[in-house]
């Protein structure tokens, strides 16, 4: 039996509660993500996938329902506890990269470790390792606006990995990139997933990208309308393996 990483039961998220515009964004969602799984959540814009990702990333609190992260209920956690969970358990990758513009690539990767209370030496060493992992070590002193989109996203991925999180939450990580650099970024996610065993949740509206993941959860109007294990996933990893061997 595989261990469960994300366990969501009957989750409801409403906004503008009590006002005439009250809106139910997530309707009775129940889903499970196992440890070490690479899952994608797909759906058209407005389907609630970003809100679901925010709830999974404990940036947002559900209106009702249960959410257990790594076996622990999230409902009653204080704001500071949720900050610490985001810091240590979760790594965010955004469509728009969200690097701190005034800080070098290195400083950006150090940031989560700074919040975690690591000393300078530890931060520096780990940040360099992670930048090497994404192939950005030579450009570590560059500011975000001196980097291309793909490079920014690679820095963002190494920042997401800073405190060895259990989950990587990626919201349209290739949405702002052309297909070639998008490919590089997706390969990085596979590499992280395969070599580090990190659980990866990819939120996208792009079915082609979803086809690369183990399981595809489809959202529509705030409900899960489809959930299937991807039969092509094995083949895909094998193909990637062959490609890597070929290169």
């Amino acid at each position, binding site marked *: 039996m595989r261990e469960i990483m994300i366990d969501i039961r009957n989750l409801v998220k409403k906004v503008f509660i009590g006002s005439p515009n009250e809106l139910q964004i997530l309707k009775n969602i129940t889903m499970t993500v196992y440890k070490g799984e690479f899952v994608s959540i797909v759906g058209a814009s407005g389907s609630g996938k970003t809100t679901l990702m*925010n709830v999974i990333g404990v*940036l947002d609190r559900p209106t009702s329902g249960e959410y257990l992260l790594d076996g622990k209920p999230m409902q009653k956690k204080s*704001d500071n506890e949720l900050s610490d969970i985001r810091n240590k358990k979760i790594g965010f990758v955004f469509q728009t990269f969200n*690097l701190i513009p005034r800080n070098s690539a290195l400083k950006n990767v150090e*940031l989560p470790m700074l*919040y975690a209370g690591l000393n300078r030496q530890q931060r520096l060493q780990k940040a360099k390792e992670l930048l090497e992992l994404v192939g950005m070590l030579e450009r570590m002193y560059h500011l975000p606006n001196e980097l291309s989109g793909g490079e920014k996203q690679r820095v963002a991925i190494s920042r997401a990995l800073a405190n060895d999180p259990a989950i990587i939450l990626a919201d349209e990580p290739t949405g702002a990139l052309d297909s070639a650099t998008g490919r590089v970024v997706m390969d990085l996610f596979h590499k992280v997933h395969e070599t580090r065993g990190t659980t990866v949740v990819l939120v996208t509206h792009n079915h082609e990208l979803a086809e690369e993941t183990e399981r595809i959860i489809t959202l529509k109007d705030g409900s899960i309308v489809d959930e299937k294990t991807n039969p092509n996933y094995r083949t895909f990893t094998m193909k990637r393996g062959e490609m890597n061997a070929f290169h």
Partner: protein
Amino acid sequence: MLFIENIVLALSALQVNKMRAFLTMTGIVIGIASVIAIVCIGNSLTASITTTMESMGANTIIVSIRERGGNEFDGGPRMPGISAATPEESDLLTDEDLETFIARFSDRIETISLSHGVGSGKAQEGRLYANVSVTGVNAGYAKANNLELLAGRFIAAKDIKGVKKVAVVSDRLINNIFSAGTDPLGREVKIYSDRIETYTIVGVYKYEASAFAPSSASEKDTLTHFYIPISLAKQDAVMKNYQVFTVITKTGVDAALFTREIEEYFAKVYENNAKWEAGVMNMESAISNMTSMLGTVSIAVAVIAAISLLVGGIGVMNIMLVSVTERTREIGTRKALGARSSYIKAQFIVEAVIICVIGGVIGIVLGLLLGALGANLLGFPATASPAVIAISVSVTILIGIFFGYYPANKAAKLDPIEALRYE
């Protein structure tokens, strides 16, 4: 650890908008600079006044005839040129009045000092010259003004009685017009003003620059007093009687108490004079008056500085609010990466404090420069005490915390989802 990181972060944030940061600081700079400058100048003024007045001594009481209903502080002599009216000869004190006065208080008066300015002129000896201010004095003058005799004697009672053409001159004058080694005593010196007068030198006093008459001129051109018997000086004066004289009390006399007694004495003398009265002032009370006057000025400047700091603080708050809005997305990202609200708050408060402290330091430097300049003009270099500087720095830190708190709190309370969505 986080604290140092916050400082580095704040500095890098300020570097992005140097001009804006600088403009934000100006209110703080002006506030702190004005406080420091006025403290410097105040210290200098106090030092200069007290040294000058202390040299006159606490046992000095000045009596002056002034117009009734004057509102000048505590019975002091009217500032020259301020008085609108001119007294008649009969309103002033005669030699007899003074003699009666001295006789009445002979147990407590050591001497009185009289002087009468004649005008300036030039002492000439061959091609050499010295600028002088001819002043008629009595024997008590030297004592009242702490003159130090280097040779000979001062103007004596017999010179005054005999209206003798003798003079006591400064060492500067001697150096300027006589060759070194000459014994000046008994020498004659010619004074050129609107006419030429010849005096015999009977004494030499040591010239000292005073705070009220700083010697900006070169040594050669310095104007020094040229003392002659007061009877001689009064010969050509329009007013033969005295408007001002100084009393030197014997040692051990309570000057403040004696001042009041003299006041009562002259109140009686001027009982029947509707227009004029005698003002009596003791040096000690004059010093405390000066000090309290300076205190009032300091309070006024402190109020101006406080307003300037308040406005500066509001400016800092305003720019911090702008900064929070500009960096909404950054704040959202930081929160997503696990920054606690308290950390975001600390980051913005530190930034506000840094703006204020940099402004404060610039203000201190500027204030010290202005203060040094002002103090130099007054002739008594003085600087603000380290305590004042320490207080200024503390005040700027407090301003930063106070005015940075609201924007920082706003940043800390931002909803991370809203913040990440912000364009």
